[in-house]
């Protein structure tokens, strides 16, 4: 019996197995391998994978009442496969999207033409908590405001990709994408020999290249640093990983200092050394106590002065979160048309804005069919999943929306796709999303695949690792002509 026989049928699009129990093209060779191994062998290898993760210390930090705990990264052995030709189209769409968003951000902090032309309502921008008047008047090299973007993609019941949200502030997850690949190469080496899987480990070099391209100096060898809030941050593992892979310093706020000439230096054993580019992993609000939160000890006093004086490049640039608002998200297709005069290559999920009266009415009436999201949260916090909510929860959210409509958007519950996942005795379908990473500097770059996150609980749609989700390696497969 084949491993995919008796795979449960359901109403969702399955990424790997069609309704006739046959693997889709991109997954054919993978399933040949899985069938060669059989379920017992797979379970053995899953154990090996978990042991490897413990040894390599691949972890993430979870905040809890009892302090911060390092948890091992959850990984499912069965990769998710996507055909290269299909991915090619998706990556073009992602580049297009990020290019338009960067033009948008620069416009917002300068002439605001898009507001004058009433394509995007002005109050959305001015009321966004990530709009930074402190960035007004800045023009950046290559219009690189959001230099690193992690967009979340999902597939609907027909298998079409949609952008669920754009993460433009300090998107994380890319190190786990790379670690997943390392673990899967260790645990399934045969597959990599036989199947034409696109490599992904060039990401750190692409990131470094992008960071170099936004350096304000002409130096051949600009000084680049990764700025972390420190060891207690949930993504500290990733900050250290990226600094390591790029061979640049991982600094904390207290390691940096801005002098009266508005230049940034780091405190070295032999004195101060000038810094040209900062890849910051600290939110806007904390980067500079002179300008933003005074009580922040994570940031660097004077950093905004240095940036505004053009003495340091910052990725992502302060204020770029203005395009990472779930309300603004609804306008992204129009933004693409406005700046690029092109049709969006990847669609948005239909989105109702509670700030619009007609939308709000619809949302309140159909709450039990919708997913409601606060405009500025991340990590899957503060969500309402209508079809699964109790009457109490529905009532609470109605109240919340009425009190602050600007802060809420709603989307139809998507029938997001599933992927075979190793469960107790067989493969079972579990819902997934995908976070590719897009770089924008002198050139654009999209990762080959991305971080696949999987809801490990049967039927669950929640894929966030901080809330019990897991992950898989993502294979972009070049099909060979047969």
């Amino acid at each position, binding site marked *: 019996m084949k491993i995919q026989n008796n795979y449960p049928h359901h109403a969702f699009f399955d990424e790997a197995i069609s309704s006739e129990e046959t693997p889709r093209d991109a997954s054919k060779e993978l399933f040949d391998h899985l069938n060669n191994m059989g379920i017992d062998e797979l379970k053995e290898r899953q154990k090996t994978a978990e042991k490897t993760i*413990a*040894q*390599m*210390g691949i972890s993430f930090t979870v905040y809890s009442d009892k302090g911060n705990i390092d948890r091992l990264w959850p990984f499912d052995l069965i990769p998710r496969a996507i055909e290269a030709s299909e991915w090619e189209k998706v990556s073009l769409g992602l580049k297009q999207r990020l290019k338009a968003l960067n033009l948008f951000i620069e416009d917002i902090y300068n002439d605001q033409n898009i507001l004058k032309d009433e394509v995007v309502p002005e109050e959305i921008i001015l009321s966004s908590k990530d709009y930074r008047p402190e960035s007004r008047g800045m023009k950046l090299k290559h219009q690189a405001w959001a230099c690193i973007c992690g967009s979340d993609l999902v597939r609907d019941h027909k298998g079409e990709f949609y952008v669920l949200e754009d993460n433009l502030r300090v998107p994380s997850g890319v190190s786990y994408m790379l670690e997943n690949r390392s673990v899967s190469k260790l645990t399934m080496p045969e597959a990599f020999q036989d199947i034409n899987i696109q490599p992904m480990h060039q990401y750190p070099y692409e990131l470094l290249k992008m960071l170099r391209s936004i350096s304000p100096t002409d130096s051949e060898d600009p000084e680049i640093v*990764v700025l972390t809030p420190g*060891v207690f941050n949930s993504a500290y593992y990733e900050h*250290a*990983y990226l*600094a*390591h892979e790029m061979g*640049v*310093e*991982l*600094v*904390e706020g*207290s*390691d940096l200092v801005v002098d009266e000439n508005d230049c940034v230096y*780091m*405190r*070295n*054993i*032999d*004195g101060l050394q000038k810094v040209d580019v900062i890849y910051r992993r600290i939110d806007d609000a904390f980067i500079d106590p002179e300008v933003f939160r005074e009580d922040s000890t994570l940031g660097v006093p004077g950093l905004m002065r240095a940036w505004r004086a053009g003495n340091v490049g910052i990725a992502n640039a302060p204020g770029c979160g203005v395009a990472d608002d779930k309300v603004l998200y609804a306008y992204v297709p129009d933004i693409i048309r406005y700046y690029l005069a092109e049709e969006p290559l990847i669609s948005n999920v239909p989105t109702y804005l509670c700030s619009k009266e007609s939308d709000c009415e619809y949302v309140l009436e159909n709450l039990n069919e919708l997913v409601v999201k606060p405009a500025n949260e991340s990590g899957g916090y503060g969500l309402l999943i209508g079809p699964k909510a109790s009457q109490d929860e529905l009532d609470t959210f109605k109240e919340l929306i009425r009190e602050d409509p600007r802060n809420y958007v709603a989307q139809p519950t998507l029938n997001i796709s599933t992927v075979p996942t190793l469960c107790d005795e067989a493969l079972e379908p579990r819902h997934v999303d995908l976070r590719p990473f897009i770089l924008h500097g002198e050139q654009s770059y999209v990762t080959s695949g991305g971080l696949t996150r999987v809801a490990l609980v049967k039927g669950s749609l929640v894929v966030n690792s901080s809330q019990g989700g897991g992950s898989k390696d993502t294979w972009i497969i070049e099909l060979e002509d047969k």
Partner: protein
Amino acid sequence: MLSRVAERLYWLARYIERIENTARLAQVHSQLMLDMPKSVKLSWYTLIEITSNEDFFDEHYDAKTEKNCCWAILGDRDNSASLMSSLWWARENVRTTRDSLPREAWIYVNELYLLVNENKEDFYVRSKRNALLEQIIRSCQAIAGMLDGTMSLNTTFKFLQLGTAIERADMTSRILDVGAFFVAQETEAQEMKQFESILWANILKSVSAYFMYRQAVQMEINGKSVIRYLVNDPNLFRSINHCVSMMQTQINVLPSSPEVNQSILELQQLIEQKIPFELGSPVLHNYLDDVQMQLSKVHNEFYSTWFHPSTTQETTQQQNQ
């Protein structure tokens, strides 16, 4: 290199070295306890004294038993100077400097931590303790070898070397203290003499220098020549003299200060002087104490020169000596 990173690397190397030497110390002590007759007063509490843990021990333990003494210096996380605490801090320091070290550094240290943490109960059991200590020593050697074999002679490496050298010198002096305790005993010189060679041979073995000593010194093993060997030999990696040379080499290529140079020079002079050694007297112990004090002075100069140049030499929680 960032001051903060330099400090963590320095401590990382110190902790790795300390873990290894603590394991060695406990191991050699186990051997000695088997070899020595009851009349020689060498108790498990000597371990606590050698590692300067008397205050902690007296506060937290009621009896000076083998179990208590071993647990206090090996497994007790509440004791900031225990092997387990050093390992925890080593892991923390490598976790927070991972970007400047080879990837294996994190993996090796993490693995060692997982191993010891899972088996720490073995520290209580005499029959299992030595096997675990053996594994710990082997892992520390693997970490040091991996770093030697994969790194370039950059600033990172220099601070690792500096940390290793100062900690090693300190621990060699502490291990020699086992002998100092012995010679200071008020026992009949004649009675002690028969055990002397066993004692000093064990001390040599505890730093894996027995074989090298045999090659270098062809006479009977005695205290004077073992001390001369472990303190002064210019070619033995674990001799205090060699550790001081290692520090001198690194300091010459780091941006150093006159204070650092001066403190190393004083240490050098201390090493070069004729070592007092008399049976039934505490002079050797006092001499080794002076060496440890001078090492501590050198350490403080490192602090004010590189790690916290503008502030006073405040030490944080992890920097307990």
